[in-house]
């Protein structure tokens, strides 16, 4: 099943009097269960594509379907629902809420998705086992290493079983050892659970963990 389809996707920002064409007609297909890395230099449009696929900003034109839902027709409220139910984010800076423990950072994502209580979720238990963070969940982010924080961020992104996991430079702030651990986790999630992953990275070694590498330049896929 095709998880993501983008056709002739454009995004134009207006900065003062100047129009910036961040995406100039992107065509992309990601099949369900694929692990795709998007690489490219700064300014190539990777982050804009990430933000559009994540429903953080609307596209200007084109077609983009995620899990069968067309983003071009979505209102702000629809995109909010998309982020809640269909996509999960992993950021370079982890972006955990500093006042909450690791467990609560995961729980808040469930709460936002409207899932109450503590019903058992065997698939997520397996995810947690893969991430190897069970003993660190009671700590707040300031007491966790970068690698641990990123693994908790991955758990948070997956707790609502999104169709697509979007990772933006997930190893950008990590040392080699932790980078390897996080990338292995992503690969494991993809292989064992069939999680569809789209990862943006500068790092060719990181991109090598993916099934497929897509290169972007000047707002286009090359």
């Amino acid at each position, binding site marked *: 099943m095709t998880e993501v389809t983008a056709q002739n996707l454009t995004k134009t920002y207006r900065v003062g009097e100047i129009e910036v064409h961040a995406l100039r007609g992107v065509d992309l297909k990601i099949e369900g269960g694929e692990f795709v890395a998007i690489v490219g230099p700064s300014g190539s449009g990777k982050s804009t594509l990430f933000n559009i696929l*994540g429903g953080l900003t609307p596209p200007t034109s084109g077609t983009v379907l995620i899990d069968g839902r067309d983003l071009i027709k979505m209102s702000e409220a629809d995109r909010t*629902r998309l982020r809640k139910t269909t996509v999960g984010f992993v950021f370079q800076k982890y*972006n955990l809420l*500093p006042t*909450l423990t690791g467990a*609560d950072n995961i729980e*808040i994502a469930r*709460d*936002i998705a409207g899932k109450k209580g503590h019903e058992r979720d065997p698939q997520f238990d397996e995810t947690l086992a893969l991430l190897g963070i069970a003993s660190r969940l009671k700590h707040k982010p300031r007491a966790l290493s970068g690698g641990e924080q990123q693994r908790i961020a991955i758990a948070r992104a997956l707790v609502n079983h999104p169709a697509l996991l979007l990772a933006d430079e997930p190893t950008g702030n990590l040392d080699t050892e932790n980078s390897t651990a996080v990338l292995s986790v992503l690969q494991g999630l993809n292989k064992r659970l069939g999680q569809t992953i789209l990862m943006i990275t500068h790092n060719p070694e990181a991109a090598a963990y993916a099934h497929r590498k897509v290169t972007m330049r000047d707002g286009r896929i090359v």
Partner: protein
Amino acid sequence: MIYRLVFENLKHRPVRTLLSVVAIGVEVTLILTLVGVSRGVLGDMAARSRGTGADILIRPPDSAGFTFSLTMPEKVVNVVRAQPHVAMATGTFVKYIDSFNSITGIHVDEFNAMSGGLKVKKGRMFQAPDEIVVDDVYAKQHHLKPGSTTDLAHTWNVSGIVEEGKLSRTFGDIGALQQLFEARGLVSTIYVKLDNPANTAAVKDALQKVLPTYKIDSIEDFVSLFSVNSVPYIEAFTRVVIGIAVLIGFLVVCLSMYTAVLERTREIGILKALGASPAYIVGILLRETVLLALTGTVVGILMTYGTRSLMAIFAASMPQEIVPDWYLTVAGIALAGSIVGALYPGLRAARQDAIEALAYD
């Protein structure tokens, strides 16, 4: 879960949280203290009026509210005494010094017979024209003891301290006061004790026929005037203070939440990325606000016990009542001011662009 986030957010900035709670507490205390003092002072005045032992009170025609003028001839007392069922009647002379102080001239023997007697706790009753006795509240507030002097439009020697609760806080000889304040033969009020309190209405009606222009009330009707509703300026003043208090709460919460929203820009971006709706984000801030307002209300209520103690030390003649019947009202006032204060920061947070918020450092 959302409540844990709310608690943790408030715990994360303890000084800001504490200041907000204290400021809302001050708002609440301000209102409760004003209402409590208003009621306390009026209640005290009512109790002291009852303490005269009289059943009926006669005031001059030009008396307003529950104050007394000095335009009633003392010979009216004899007219009153001549009425059926009147067991005793005595005139008093009230000289107002300022808004908070007055001195009352009495015929000691008559007043004692009617009221059950001023109980001297220290020193003795006044004997010389320049001597007065004061009650223990007044003595405590002004640090007076027998032998002290006090200035009430005249320098008086304090001959004794009497127990509080009977008509006034300061007593002198009525003749001496009439002479000193050039009001010979005039009294402010006539207190009337009947042979049977059950005759009060009938005697009052009879007296009104004899003295048609005078203000004649039963004591209970008179003390019913000592209520906040009967004193328009207290109600107006209370409204003004409530307005100021609400403004304080509004400004404090608005500032506190505004800084919280600025500080948490990135966190708001994270919540938005996780799919939090604007209502969810506003809900977090509103819950924090409600928690601050309710905690502040409890703190404010507790602080009123402190203000009552302070009033007892520094302004003993203005007793403060604790007013539990106002707790819900004041909680509502604190909540309303706080929620309005949180609206702008909340809307600002809800409208924040997720991408910009996530890029915020």
